[in-house]
């Protein structure tokens, strides 16, 4: 009898869960645009992931509260915790794609690589903003993947260009040593082919220091190697707990911090602050606004933070990674708005969203209209170029906060673009039969 009761109860619960699952997409499809957010607020990478997740959530939530959504249609937001784990990321994708997902932001190169082959099959675009597979910038080969405003190869070319400027010209890099400290994962290894090409072209020696994921907080060996090799500059592709540890270790071996430059994902406020007074001078690339002095961020404060609709600590608004999350959601929102204009529909599909992203044109006027004047460099996506290779600036830690330390620096597009196209072709051949593009170009 007891077994029968348990069986009956279990069946009822299972049916309930199943019915809820079946009913949810229909309900969402009728009156809202569904945007799943793959985030990570737990685990070893939470230190970086939390700020990104907050920024992404808060901007879209603000649009709901202030404007009633986009084009009069509310956004249905749902976070799924990936823990920066590719397997969990794919599980999140599979669990949410049937709910009418418009776009995926994996926030992990590992997850992005898993989703790229699925995007075209499921007709849901992947937006890997400033990360993921660099070759995906080739829109003719990857019509469903967007990595605007820049690829890692763009970033790598900018950092070398900046170092060249510091040395009085790229020709002066000959004979120099540039160290590359990277998370030993798909993310950290991504820019190596380009860095090797640039090393050969400009005659500098590229010294590589991989940091295994399990050793993120145990980097003394890598930095002892740095001390012995005496590189002229250090470049870092770090994430999560790797960043603050690296900054501390650099301080510990007395490496000149103004010659230590991180990628835009190593530009968190906590990353630099961990090094204390000694971290003063540490630099990082950036493509999103510094500080909170923007009307859109004030709206987030007013409509989302103050009413208690977010888990964001008020003092983290305006932080580098928070603003990065905001910029990501600006691109999502503008993609939706553009798709609505192109299709005349209010509730759109993933296919519509793909067109919206492909026709994205975030110019200065539009940024000002959004309350984000100067928050990012104007950016434009074309059918051929899904990254756009937009300019990047260098920021520097003054001991308390980041300060812009350079003008906008253009990536070496002439070098990067042919390599990207060759890499895209190579990817398609290795993953044959890779479908030829049939999607119409909205531009």
């Amino acid at each position, binding site marked *: 009898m007891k077994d029968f009761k348990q069986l009956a109860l279990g069946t009822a619960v299972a049916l309930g869960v199943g019915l809820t699952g079946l009913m949810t997409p229909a309900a969402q499809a009728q009156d809202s645009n569904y945007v799943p957010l793959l985030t990570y*607020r*737990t685990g*070893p990478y939470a230190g970086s992931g*939390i700020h990104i997740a907050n920024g992404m959530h808060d901007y879209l939530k603000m649009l709901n509260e202030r404007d009633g959504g986009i084009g009069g249609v509310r956004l249905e937001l749902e976070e799924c915790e990936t823990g920066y784990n590719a397997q969990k990321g794919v599980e999140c994708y599979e669990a949410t794609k049937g709910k009418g997902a418009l776009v995926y932001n994996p926030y992990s190169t590992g997850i992005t690589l898993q989703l790229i082959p699925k995007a075209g099959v499921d007709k849901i675009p992947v937006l890997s903003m400033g990360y993921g597979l660099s070759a995906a910038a080739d829109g003719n080969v990857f019509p469903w993947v967007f990595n605007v405003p820049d690829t890692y190869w763009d970033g790598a070319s900018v950092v070398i260009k900046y170092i060249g400027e510091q040395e009085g010209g790229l020709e002066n890099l000959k004979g120099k040593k540039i160290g590359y400290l990277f998370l030993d994962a798909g993310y950290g290894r991504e820019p190596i082919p380009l860095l090797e090409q640039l090393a050969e072209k400009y005659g500098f020696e590229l010294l590589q220091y991989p940091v295994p994921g399990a*050793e993120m907080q145990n980097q003394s*060996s890598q930095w*002892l190697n740095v001390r012995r090799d005496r590189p002229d500059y250090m470049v870092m592709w770090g994430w999560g707990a790797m960043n603050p*540890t690296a900054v501390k270790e650099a301080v510990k071996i007395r490496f000149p911090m103004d010659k230590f430059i991180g990628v835009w994902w190593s530009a968190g406020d906590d990353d630099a602050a*961990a090094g204390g007074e000694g971290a003063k001078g540490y630099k990082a690339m950036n493509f999103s606004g510094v500080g909170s002095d923007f009307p859109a961020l004030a709206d987030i404060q007013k409509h989302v933070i103050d009413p208690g609709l977010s888990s964001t600590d008020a003092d983290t608004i305006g932080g580098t990674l928070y603003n990065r999350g905001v910029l990501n959601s600006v691109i999502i929102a503008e993609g939706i708005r553009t798709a609505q204009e192109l299709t005349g529909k209010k509730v759109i599909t993933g296919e519509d969203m793909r067109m919206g992203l492909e026709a994205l044109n975030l110019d200065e006027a539009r940024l000002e209209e959004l309350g984000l004047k100067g928050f990012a460099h104007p950016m434009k996506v074309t059918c051929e170029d899904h990254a756009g290779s937009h300019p990047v600036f260098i920021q520097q830690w003054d001991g308390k906060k980041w300060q812009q330390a350079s003008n906008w620096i253009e990536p070496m597009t002439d070098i990067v673009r042919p390599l990207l196209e060759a890499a895209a072709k190579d990817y398609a051949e290795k993953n044959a039969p890779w479908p030829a593009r049939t999607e119409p170009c909205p531009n």
Partner: protein
Amino acid sequence: MLYDIFIDPFVQMYDMPDFFLQVLWEGFVAGILYALIALGFVLIFKASGVFNFAQGIMVVFAGLTLVGLHENGVPAYLALILTIGVMAVLAYGVERIVMRPLVNQPEIILLMATIGLTYFLVGFGEFVFGGEPKQMITEELGLPTGSTAFEIGERGLIILQHIDIAAAVIAVVMVIALAIFFNKTRIGRALRAVADDHQAALSVGISLNQIWAIVWFAAGLVALATGIMWGARSDVSFALEIVAFKALPVLILGGFTSIPGAIVGGLIIGFGEKIGELYWGGLVGGGVESWLAYIIALIFLLFRPQGLFGERIIERI
């Protein structure tokens, strides 16, 4: 190639003696820290024969509790005392809720229970303290910061971090205290009796429950010390849980039941991985220390399967 393997590393050691000394120092510090983590595992294994999978997360949990209390306005030393109290409550709770109901169950069941405890502490820790890394309150606790540099010759330089020196001193003090506790006190002798044979210990009136609670508390204190030291070197974050598993090769090497084994094993692994990474790692692209420690442990196992200080068990058929 042969030159790179057999000659060049030693030439480098000779040419840059200050750097070699720095490598040795870093190896020593790493070894001491690994030994501290391994101590926590050894304590529980000695008392219950269980590999405590939760030791890594206990390090994180202790560190987060300390920093979290301080962030909420509790003075540093009071926060330290309260954290010790929290670890005592945790030990009592583990004994009552996890260990006691599982007495006489196969060891694999107890291992699974500690895995469950790990997930509970991860979730509970994130629920209470959030997932963001926190900076250790090193100065507030009166621990030294900064560094001292010693110049050797014209260009030689050795940099000693004060926190690393403090870690070494604290580790030595903890080992001595634990050695005295196990060898000179009644409870320590009782624990050794439990470690030898649970049923025999029970038959002479030793309370298994009390011993387990004490051992889990001692492991909690070791976790707290480890959390403070590792946290001061980087941050207190959930990534530290992964670092804690660096103790595995130390345990393989030193034996799961030996406190001196944990220390000696930790030092061998610490020195071995640093020297290996710095002088031979470059031959295979670097990043070898994460697996080199296991290779070192396995080489030792070929000659002493029970570990350097482990008990040799001979079962007669």
